[in-house]
């Protein structure tokens, strides 16, 4: 579904992506993890077209995204910290996004309703807590029923209940055959959701394996330990 | 004896009728052309020109007659000669249209020329496309009234003056309209003349131009949109009152230019939209009182060789520059003028500002030296410069100031 080919990006002298190649398929949840500054956000933003790579290609459904913008109608994006025009009310933000995407698709309001956001429609964005903003962001990412979901630290600001709800929706999306890309630091969450883990380090992919493979290779049941072990062996190699 | 005055009148009238007769000229009359009629006329007769177009070549009037048109008859000179030449006194020309006089560089062809005569009356005539309009030399005690002079010269070099006086005294010129000539009104050695209520506009050079013409009075005339405005020189004892000098735009264009003028009065005039409203060079003892200077580029250009001129109760409003000069000394006097740019205060509430106004701005002086600096006019940098100079005058003439500027514009 998404094919990333030899992606390179420099910020000044810093090489953030050193030729990353990777594929994301339908009906799978891929978790991109790695230490801070490893290039995961740059990779995600490149897919979203927010960062323009120096070289390499991103191909979505057989078409390069370079210079294209319409492909983004197939993507739902939930940023790490969602910020919206301060003076707008929540309801207005939703109607604005619908207006901007001018989509004919019947909106998917399941997340919106699970979070009971419609009851908050009259609140202005300025007054909202971080968690509520995250709920809004999540609802917006799912709203247009996109084939691809890009979720950047989706549960970071959410309370446990809300996190649980979001996880259910992610798994549901997967079962509908959507491609979900998640960055996360929480290993238990990754374990629960992801089929595959892409571990990034210093702008390169350290490994790209399914959870099953990782656990089998390391013999560890807990994902966190398994990855730590795997990394150690990678470095020793 | 109540009947005596009446009888006297009848006697007077009949005797007049006996002496003076009216000779009609026109298609329906014995005289088909004015020249033979004039030849046959005697002093005191009236030659009545009826409606029609008459081809003429310099009609010569050498006797005291009234030459009068009825229903606007036209004398067409067909660009060949003068229209009419007057060489007798007590001549009246009234209600006649004269067209197409000759043009030449050596001879001053005119619609009507008159010489060495007195008591002439030129009234209600229309002169179209004549080289000079009225060309008067050595004329005394005459009246030029309510004529319309429309020149159509192609340019400055090939045009003559509208009303041209040379060596004349006591001539009254009023309510005439003059346009399209070189100078609208031109005087050389014309003295004790009264010029009032004329409109002189769209002439190639000056609306009014005179020299060596002492003791003339100009009241309630309008001089506007002439090539270079009004310029007067080498004269004493002028009175200019209630005139309007307007719309004279150009680098050498003036509302009024005074050069070597002495002992004169310029009062109650309006100077509107001129590049330079009033320019004084070598002119002394001029009283400039109660005039309005509105929306001019420079209201006053007062050269350093002018002395003892007084500027009192004038209104300076909306001019780009109020006063500019070319030296650092000024021997002239400013009092009780209204300056719209004055920013002083009046603590004792006597209607007069408590600090003097210096009408010469530093920037006006800079522009005198570097003309293209005008592009920076009203810029922030220039405003700062002017403010600094206002507080510590160094380059602008120290004495040129109004010590008692009015707080409110004087009402006339």
């Amino acid at each position: 579904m998404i094919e990333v080919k030899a992606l390179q990006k420099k910020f000044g002298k810093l090489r953030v992506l050193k030729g990353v190649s990777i594929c994301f398929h339908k009906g799978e949840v891929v978790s991109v993890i790695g230490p801070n500054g490893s290039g995961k956000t740059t990779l995600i933003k490149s897919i979203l077209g927010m960062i323009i790579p120096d070289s390499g290609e991103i191909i979505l459904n057989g078409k390069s995204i370079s210079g294209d913008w319409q492909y983004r109608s197939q993507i739902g994006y939930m940023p790490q910290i969602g910020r919206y025009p301060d003076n707008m009310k929540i309801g207005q933000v939703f109607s604005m996004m619908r207006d901007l995407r001018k989509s004919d698709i019947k909106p998917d309001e399941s997340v919106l309703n699970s979070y009971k956001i419609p009851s908050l429609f009259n609140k202005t964005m300025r007054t909202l807590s971080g968690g509520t903003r995250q709920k809004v962001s999540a609802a917006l990412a799912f709203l247009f029923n996109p084939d691809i979901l890009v979720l950047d630290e989706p549960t970071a600001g959410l309370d446990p209940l809300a996190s649980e709800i979001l996880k259910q929706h992610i798994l549901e999306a997967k079962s509908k055959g959507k491609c979900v890309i998640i960055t996360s630091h929480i290993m238990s969450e990754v374990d629960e959701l992801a089929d595959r883990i892409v571990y990034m380090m210093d702008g390169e992919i350290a490994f790209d394996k399914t959870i099953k493979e990782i656990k089998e290779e390391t013999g560890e049941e807990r994902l966190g330990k398994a990855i730590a072990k795997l990394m150690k062996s990678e470095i020793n190699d | 004896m109540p009947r005596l005055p009446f009888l006297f009148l009848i006697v007077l009238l009949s005797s007049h009728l006996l002496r003076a007769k009216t000779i009609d000229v026109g298609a329906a009359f014995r005289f088909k052309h004015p020249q033979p009629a004039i030849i046959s006329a005697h002093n005191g007769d009236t030659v009545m020109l009826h409606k029609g177009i008459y081809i003429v070549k310099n009609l010569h009037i050498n006797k005291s007659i009234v030459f009068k048109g009825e229903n606007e008859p036209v004398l067409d000179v067909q660009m060949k000669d003068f229209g009419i030449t007057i060489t007798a006194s007590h001549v009246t020309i009234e209600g006649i249209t004269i067209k197409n006089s000759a043009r030449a560089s050596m001879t001053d062809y005119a619609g009507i020329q008159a010489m060495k005569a007195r008591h002439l009356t030129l009234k209600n005539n229309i002169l179209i496309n004549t080289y000079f309009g009225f060309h008067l030399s050595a004329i005394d005690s005459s009246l030029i009234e309510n004529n319309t002079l429309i020149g159509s010269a192609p340019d400055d070099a090939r045009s003559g003056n509208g009303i041209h006086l040379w060596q004349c005294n006591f001539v009254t010129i009023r309510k005439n309209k003059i346009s399209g000539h070189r100078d609208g009104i031109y005087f050389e050695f014309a003295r004790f003349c009264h010029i009032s209520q004329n409109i002189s506009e769209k002439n190639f050079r000056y609306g009014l131009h005179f020299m060596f013409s002492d003791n003339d009075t100009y009241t309630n005339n309008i001089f506007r949109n002439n090539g270079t405005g009004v310029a007067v020189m080498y004269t004493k004892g002028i009175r200019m009152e209630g005139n309007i000098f307007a719309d004279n735009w150009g680098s050498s264009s003036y509302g009024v230019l005074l050069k070597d003028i002495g002992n004169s009065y310029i009062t109650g005039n309006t100077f509107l939209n001129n590049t330079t409203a009033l320019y004084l060079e070598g002119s002394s003892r001029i009283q400039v009182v109660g005039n309005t200077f509105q929306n001019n580029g420079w209201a006053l250009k007062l050269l350093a060789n002018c002395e003892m001129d007084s500027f009192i109760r004038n209104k300076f409003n909306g001019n780009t520059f109020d006063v500019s000069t070319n030296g650092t000394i000024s021997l002239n006097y400013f009092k009780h003028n209204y300056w719209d740019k004055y920013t002083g205060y009046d603590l004792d509430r006597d209607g007069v500002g408590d600090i003097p106004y210096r009408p010469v701005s530093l920037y006006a002086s800079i522009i005198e030296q570097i003309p293209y600096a005008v592009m920076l006019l009203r810029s922030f940098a220039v405003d700062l410069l002017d403010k600094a100079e206002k507080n510590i005058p160094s380059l602008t003439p120290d004495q040129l100031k109004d010590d008692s500027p009015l707080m409110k514009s004087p009402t006339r």
Partner: protein
Amino acid sequence: MIKVTKYVIYDIVRNRVLIAYTLFLFLIASTLFNMEEDPSKAIISLMSIVMIMVPLISIVFATTYFFNSYEFIELLVAQPLKRSTILLGEYIGVALSLSFAFFIGIGIPIILFDATATGFVLILSGILLTLVFISLAFLSSVITRDKAKGIGIALMIWFYFSIIYDALMLALLFTFSDYPLEQAMIPIVALNPIDLGRIIIMLKLDISALMGYTGALFKSFFGNSMGIFYTCCIMFIWIIAPLLYSIKVFNRKNL
């Protein structure tokens, strides 16, 4: 684009700074008109204020607004929208709001107190300056990442055009006063939008003085209504060129 504009305006009309700006202009203009008996005198004072304040507020406000809505722009960039559409939409939104604020603050008092040609030309010039300086603000916003740096550049641009440029020009005129600078003057002036805005008003206010210059170029430039037309055309270049360059930079910008 219109949709982006719609939401920018929606957001901006409730911005307190914008409301304060409108009130500030309105207060100054109506005070001036009430204090001066002669409205044409008020216009001249108003002109000096407009020439300084409008570029300053426009460029600082637009730069600040751009950085404050950075996240919103990020959000938009992740949507199926063209980047040029987003930036143009933002520009038009900010431009309409600030022009409207100027029109309410300065234009309405002028129409009420002195609806003359000079008054209308002042409104025209103020709006053109607003548009130019928003365009420059967008440029300084897209070429930097940092808000403080962006506002710093914006202030420098303003300072340069409102004082430094004219001071340099004056120095240049003094230094080369013996040379025929007539030909050079118009291009030199055209390189400063504030000077252009000033000249539009001068063409009405000081035409009598300007006609005192003999140069053929000046005559043809000032001598007819084409002067205002040409000046406006150059102002439009000042609006469009920085904006197009901003779009070019923004299209390649990493958010």
